[in-house]
């Protein structure tokens, strides 16, 4: 390799020729690109001034940028010395004596200067460890409350009246058979964990699980709307098949059979809310949910 420095190229060196076989044409192309770019940018300015619609603004800006860039790149590629040029690649690893000296400077010097105070080193280790641990406390603990029992509860209590998202109470004759509506416990309208689907089905079709005989008065069934898979709202009801579909990952739940999953990745039925109808005809919950709603978690 020659030494880098003051190399003057030989004018006859074919590496200094432009890459383009026809540099004049290439220069014309570059010039045309630049002109198009300039015009587009000017047009952008005018369009912005005149409050043109967004596609015009974006289109002119895009065209200006692209045309300038195209010219720039073509200049660099076709009109500059084509090479090939090279540079030497030297080993990054230093010669052994230098490396040994570097290692010694860090390791040996440290071992002597620091290692002779083993008690202080241990204290420093303890301090570093404890700092690392306690500094995590505010970083984590202050971010949110502890879960405690909150994953096991919802806003549904014994006797909660079923209301719509806007707070209108549901009466026993509000829904036709085949009707479906999202309900909340009164006072918790719109709440994420309390969202519940109220479905009215033909009374005879229901497969009643033992212990749930009184949960579905007048064909009304209420299930948590939170998918037991990943927590999406189970928003699609297919009336013909009496199935609930989660649009996120396609879990299917059989409404007539305690919302058992019949297809897809959901592992558990949607929890069922026991209902009753009060003397005034309003639908109320007999109690809250008996199992945690939503996806699985460790403490469940």
């Amino acid at each position, binding site marked *: 390799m020659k030494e880098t*420095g*003051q*190399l*003057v190229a030989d*004018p006859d060196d074919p*590496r200094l020729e*432009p*890459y383009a*076989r026809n540099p*004049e*044409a290439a*220069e014309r192309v570059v010039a045309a690109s630049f002109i198009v770019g300039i015009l587009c940018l000017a047009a952008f300015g005018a369009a912005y001034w005149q409050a043109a619609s967004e*596609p015009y603004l*974006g*289109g002119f*800006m*895009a065209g*200006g*940028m*692209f*045309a300038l*860039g195209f010219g*720039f790149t073509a*200049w*660099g590629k076709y*009109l*500059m*010395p084509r*090479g*090939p*040029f*090279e540079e*030497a*690649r030297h*080993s*990054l690893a230093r010669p052994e004596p230098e490396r040994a000296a570097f290692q010694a400077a860090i390791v040996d010097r440290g071992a002597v200067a620091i290692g002779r105070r083993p008690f202080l080193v241990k204290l420093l280790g303890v301090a570093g460890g404890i700092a690392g641990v306690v500094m995590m406390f505010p970083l984590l*603990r202050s*971010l*949110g409350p502890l*879960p405690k029992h909150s994953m096991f509860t919802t806003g549904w209590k014994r006797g909660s009246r079923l209301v719509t*998202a806007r707070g209108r109470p549901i009466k026993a004759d509000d829904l036709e058979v085949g009707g479906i509506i999202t309900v909340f416990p009164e006072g918790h309208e719109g*709440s994420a*964990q309390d*969202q519940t689907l109220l479905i009215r089905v033909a009374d005879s079709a229901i497969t009643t699980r033992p212990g749930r005989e009184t949960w579905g008065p007048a064909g009304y069934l209420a299930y948590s709307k939170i998918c037991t*898979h*990943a*927590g*999406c709202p189970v928003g699609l009801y297919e009336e013909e098949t009496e199935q609930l579909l989660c*649009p*996120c990952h*396609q879990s299917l739940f059989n409404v007539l059979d305690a919302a058992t999953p019949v297809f*897809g*990745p*959901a*592992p*558990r039925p949607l929890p069922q809310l026991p209902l009753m109808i009060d003397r005034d005809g309003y639908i109320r919950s007999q109690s809250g949910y008996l199992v945690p709603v939503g*996806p*699985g978690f*460790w*403490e469940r």
Partner: protein
Amino acid sequence: MSSETPVEDSSPNPRVEAARSSMTRRREGRLAAGGLPGMPRRGARSKRSNQSIMDQALGWVDDRLGVSSGRSLVDKIFPDHWSFMLGEIALYSFVVLVATGIFLSLYFDPSSANVVYHGVYKPLRGQTMGVNYASTINISFAVRFGLVMRQTHHWAADVFVGAIAIHMCRIFFTGAFRKPRELNWAVGVTLLILAIVNGFIGYSLPGDLISGTGLRIMYSIMLSIPVIGTYLAFFVFGGRYPGNGVIIPRLFILHVFVVPLIIAALIGAHLYFLVRQKHTQFPGKGRREDNVVGSPMWPNFMFKTMGFQLMVTGVLLALGAFFEINPIWKFGPYLPYKVSYAVQPDWYMGWLDGALRLMPSWEFVGFGHTIPLEITIPGVIMPGLTFALFYAWPFLEARFTGDHAMHHLLDRPRDRPLRTAVGGGALAFYFVLFAASSTDVTANFLHLSLNLVLWSFRILLIVLPFVVGFVTYQVCLELMKVPDSGKRHRAMIVERSAEGEYHGYSAEARPGDGAEELEPEEVPTYLPVDELVGVGAANEETEATSKGVRQAPR
């Protein structure tokens, strides 16, 4: 001839000499009509004074910072191969992301407090929505150039992750990750993870129906981690989902400050390693382990790459101007009890979404605890293993091949059939997962039952990687038997004379052919501009031929 009077060439410090003599010359009028080597005679007056200002400026900086030691950076060689520009696409998308992101941050309000919308977009007037959603609607309709900026930002994010992924494939299949570049591979994998994370956070911010659903799923994935999951989800979201309104401000500061800062720092490290270790290159004439062949940083590469930055910007702006993306005003504001049909995330989250769909419902219940494996495996373990394998691959490969040597020359993928087959199989695996994120749409479109589609994808997920791997392996073996295939040949022209005699000769060189045949040389310091006629028309001393090919006046 200017190069025949190189007074400066013998002086110990040519830069100083050059500056001094050019100043002298200015004082003494146009004494040195020949100019310095490398200085143009044409238009000499204006150019010379320009150069002297540049010389003085560089001298001024050099006195203070010693920048002349950076000469090797100016001469740094960049290999001329198209595949090296994939990383540049990623880099320039990031630049566009930062620029458009700054614009958006001037208008976006990261608060999920409720407001009633009274803006210019009529269909939403009177609706209650989050401030974040309202301000994003505002950017889209009330801020001039806002919609293009927003859509360009979104497109740039999609292109950013895509360019990283394709760039990573290039690195993988050509073996560029081998010693000494394992560290830079690890930096690159980290950048891929951060790009995906920040992309997800970014499209969660506007508070539309789809992004809120995405956050809900992310909460469930955190919840599914054994032992710490519930605590982690509570701490990140500030309580039980949807938390107490802190998640959007938290995601915002991660999205606009913390993650981009780490990405920028890692890009710096990525490029620092690249300069320090120099580029890899494909084998070829004059290309060896101990050199790099290509074009110099200044001016060739700077022109090409700055132009490329502008072109990438132009394409992203065109996407943002003409192709609607994430039209949040059509989705409506997020309400926890609402959901829309055909919910799909951005493409780079598709493999995770598909995995969630394909996983059977294997919840583990026992010992008083629940592990929702139907979430934990596709949402936590699978991506964790994926990225762990990415990080470990250079070391795994070195261990299995026993190859611990330095490598600066790249492999052709066919020459490493096993690696290529493994890479092909892995790509097939992730592609099936990605495609599976549209099971519902596929079933509807093909009028098939969801069950059939689901099981087809499950079987494909297991079978296809092996099929693709096997076929790739066989193709590599076949290609290895034809060592020249895929290389550029001069065309052969065969002529038949009137007598019926056949006569063959090589066709004229196409652009680039000639350069391949030359031996590489070091980048010269001075170009003899008077003799090197770049463009015929620009110089009166040139006799441009009819084809315009350069002719030296000798």
